[in-house]
């Protein structure tokens, strides 16, 4: 028996709901050959419990009402869709619309997920939450909801990311979280996730692990997606209001892939809408210094509890990735993206550090919006695509976060000491 499509059960205000044909994952969390549950035995019962509790929670009208209330009054949803007219004119082609997740409380899409998971943690009677973070946005969003619901919070962050995302480290501390720098391996997001897993396996009775992206063992890729689908559900209504139809393409950056799956998933069954995920091209795919497993044609592998396309060497060791943006600096990708690639429903491309920086500055100057470096990758691809298309085409870009946290990085590149 297949599980019901949980995201379909998250009630939406979407008037255009069509019957959903796309139906993933299977009961054990497989998206085709990807996904699944690859963890040490100690965690297996905890994941089973999480799945059961999640299914119960989303079937409970009180839980869903509280989740929606929090999104509206605490996060400030719905986030607007904004027509970036001046920038579109400058690019001289398709019209670019931005889904403004940067305007959410805490400054990124991450909070949609942490609210859902923190409510779940509370419902399960867990008093302590842990999280991994790359750019620090998920760490901040976790620390925020932990403060909001009175939970103890520990955030694991690669030592390299602690250095390059210092404003967010301090923000987490202000919110009462403990930030633990992780110095093993490549000292980035994947190592933070390893350390969070080690904490969870040790404290599994008392602790809820808030995974920040649509990766990890089942049910995480499913539940993170479901909590992020609010992005696409809103956009489907907003696009009709704004332009009278759905966009020709939806574009989002892909680290683990949560902001992308959140905006893609409600569009999967809508014909004629291209779904384009933009990975971190780093110094360029040909240099090997990047974080673009899908675009570079990486082989499937097993890491962090799921099977997915994975940057690895011929011996199956995970390769160190490179991206200017800490939030995209990850060797894997959520299993549903690997599946969407396999079935050809979504396309995956890469934008380099340099292209992302250009888009970052352009959005600042033409639209008065400082985007996150992660989101700048999606913008960069939109900037590449728009000029090739007629002016009546519509591109919807998920502006997953704001760039305040990146200002020290940008200033440093410009040779400015803040």
């Amino acid at each position, binding site marked *: 028996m297949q599980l019901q499509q949980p995201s379909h059960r998250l009630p939406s205000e979407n008037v255009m709901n069509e019957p959903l044909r796309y139906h993933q994952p299977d009961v054990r969390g497989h998206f085709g050959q990807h996904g699944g549950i690859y963890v040490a035995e100690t965690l297996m019962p905890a994941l089973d419990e999480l799945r059961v509790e999640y299914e119960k929670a989303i079937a409970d009208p009180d839980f869903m009402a509280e989740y929606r209330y929090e999104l509206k009054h605490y996060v400030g949803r719905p986030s607007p869709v904004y027509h970036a007219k001046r920038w579109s004119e400058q690019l001289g082609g398709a019209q670019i619309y931005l889904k403004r997740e940067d305007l959410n409380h805490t400054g990124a899409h991450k909070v949609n997920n942490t609210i859902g998971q923190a409510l779940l943690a509370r419902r399960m009677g867990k008093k302590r939450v842990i999280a991994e973070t790359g750019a620090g946005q998920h760490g901040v969003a976790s620390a925020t909801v932990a403060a909001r619901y009175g939970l103890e919070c520990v955030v694991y962050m690669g030592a390299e990311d602690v250095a390059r995302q210092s404003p967010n480290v301090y923000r987490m501390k202000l919110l009462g979280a403990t930030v633990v720098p992780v110095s093993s*391996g490549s000292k980035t997001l994947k190592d933070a996730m390893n350390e969070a897993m080690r904490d969870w396996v040790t404290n599994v009775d008392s602790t809820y692990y808030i995974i920040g992206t649509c990766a990890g063992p089942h049910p995480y890729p499913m539940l993170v997606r479901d909590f992020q689908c609010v992005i696409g559900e809103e956009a489907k209504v907003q696009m009709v209001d704004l332009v009278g139809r759905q966009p020709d393409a939806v574009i989002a950056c892909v680290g683990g892939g949560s902001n992308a799956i959140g905006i893609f998933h409600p569009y999967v069954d809508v014909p004629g809408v291209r779904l384009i995920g933009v990975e971190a091209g780093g110094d360029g795919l040909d240099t090997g210094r990047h974080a673009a497993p899908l675009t570079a044609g990486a082989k499937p592998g097993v890491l962090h509890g799921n099977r997915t396309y994975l940057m690895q060497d011929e011996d199956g060791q995970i390769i160190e990735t490179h991206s200017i943006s800490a939030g995209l600096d990850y060797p894997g990708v959520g299993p549903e993206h690997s599946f969407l690639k396999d079935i050809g429903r979504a396309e995956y491309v890469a934008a380099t550090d340099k292209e992302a920086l250009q888009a970052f500055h352009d959005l600042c100057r033409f639209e008065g919006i400082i985007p996150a470096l992660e989101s700048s990758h999606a913008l960069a691809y939109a900037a590449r695509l728009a000029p090739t298309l007629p002016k009546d085409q519509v591109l919807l870009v998920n502006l997953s976060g704001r760039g305040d946290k990146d200002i020290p990085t940008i200033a440093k590149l410009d040779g400015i000491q803040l």
Partner: protein
Amino acid sequence: MSRIESTMQALAAQGRQALIPFITAGDPNPGVTVGLMHALVDGGADIIELGVPFSDPMADGPVIQRASERALAHRVSLRHVLAMTAEFRKTDSKTPVVLMGYANPVEAMGYETFAKAAVEAGVDGVLTVDLPPEEAEECAAILKTHGIDLIFLLAPTTPPSRLQAVQRLARGYVYYVSLKGVTGAAHLDVDSVAAKLLELRKYISLPIGVGFGIRDAETARRVAGVADAVVIGSRLVQEVEAGEDGLAERLNSFIKGVRSAMDTARA
């Protein structure tokens, strides 16, 4: 009968328990590993668990993480671990060797290719920490065809409902992880281990080894009083970390101490 089975049966017939030391292959460098394996056998080891280095050892504490990093600094991977096993087999055809590690290096090689290479090298068992029974059907079937035992972990959190699946797929022995945590964590509580083993034995007919948190001869002796095998890992890896000087002798004498303590367990 597999080499692991016959080893376990012979021990059981003598009323003794298996002593299973773990070291990471290639730690601190690829040259020493085979010598250390022989030193462990000479000290009284019955089965050797050989760690396959992995870039992301999620289930390991700092000690074995560092061992993995030292080995990876020499680019030691599954292929080399197989070669080391083959080298060991040249002079020891009796002691079972179990490869312990993570799923991805095996996935990358491919189950079939791996199984063939493992048989050829003289590997007897495989334990992949992040391959629970739910995902292990294909791997288990292929290893079984080649006569390699797939060894599973059981944990304090494992409910009875999962034990049947393990019983169905597991071969050789099962490995009970004595505590919730990573390798190298605090000491185990022998009484709670004993209670849990009674429950496990209702479902599991294979010998049960216990590991995680066994750091001295006395604890090993007490665990041997309730289990069929005693696994010691981080304590040995710490010895490796202390330096290469006299390493084989140190490991040998540590294992000798544990062995003699264990052999008085049920006396």
